[in-house]
């Protein structure tokens, strides 16, 4: 029902957290050190393959991390199985939709540049 065993979820949450922090640091450093941000520089920045790969991985890590966190809240507080399933499905839908939208944005950068 939860998709993962207890330990898998726990490990995934921790590893994704590490990646999210690393990515956040790297991105902050790039944005801080680089030239002034405009639309063209932003597109050029994200059109670089290495940042594309890192950003895609970031999206995946973020989705897993968010899923495990929200799943934890649901497992803690929602008892009736029906409502539990409903809320979980709604969250999966929302996360997948956000994920695809983000990946689409990344792909569009490639096309535009």
């Amino acid at each position, binding site marked *: *029902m*939860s998709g*993962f*065993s*207890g*330990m898998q*979820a*726990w*490990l995934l949450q921790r590893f994704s957290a590490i990646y999210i922090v690393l990515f956040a640091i790297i991105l902050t450093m790039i944005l801080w050190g680089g030239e002034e941000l405009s639309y063209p520089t932003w597109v050029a920045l994200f059109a670089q393959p290495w940042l594309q790969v890192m950003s895609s991985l970031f999206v995946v890590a973020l989705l897993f991390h968010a899923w495990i966190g929200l799943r*934890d809240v649901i*497992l*803690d*507080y929602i008892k009736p199985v029906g409502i539990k399933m409903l809320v979980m499905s709604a969250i999966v839908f929302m996360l997948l939709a956000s994920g695809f939208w983000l990946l689409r944005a990344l792909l569009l950068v490639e096309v535009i540049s």
Partner: protein
Amino acid sequence: MKFNIFRFNPETDTKPYIQSYELPGVNPEMMLLDAILTLKKKDPTLGFRKSCREGVCGSDGMNVNGVNRLACVTRLSELSDPIELRPLPGLPVIRDLIIDMEQFYKQYRAVKPYLIGSEPEPEVERLQTPKQRELLDGLYECILCGCCSTACPSFWWNPDKFLGPAALLQASRFIEDSRDEATVERLEQLDDAYKLYRCHTIMNCVQVCPKELNPTKAIGRIKERMVQKKL
């Protein structure tokens, strides 16, 4: 000194209520349990559990000014006046300060708190090296008073599915034991969404344990062992 005590007798009361008692001229170095025993002389209807009166049996766990502790090892001088006594939270009240600990014991039994082995019984004791024995320190001392599990929100929400800090400390005690042969089965049994992983490391258990044990650390050790087993 003033005491506000949670009272409930299912035979006569429809709802629990707080009853106030005054105990004049108490010695502040007196233990809380002695004060309650004095109160019981005045009002024999007051219900609570006690036995060894020295922090060994774990019978007199109660919520004192909002904190779970053992009345027999709590000095009055540590407490602010008025003293509010309530039953340990999260489990059904049988009467006054007496709770039904069946759910707590059920989770304790669920971790099979005994050595499991298939080897025939040896002629002498099952020996351990001092190092192996050291791993059990901080785990075997638990007296099952229930202060930790009844201070744990995860146990309050899911007392039937989450084992709770006390039972998990016991699980760790047998996982760490070099003489136990069921380590793998024990770890596999705990690897689901609820039994172990509802712990969110808020450490209420550590804060209240009257024996100063650290169930959160024990839970962390179980998680470590699980990862080690997988790798």
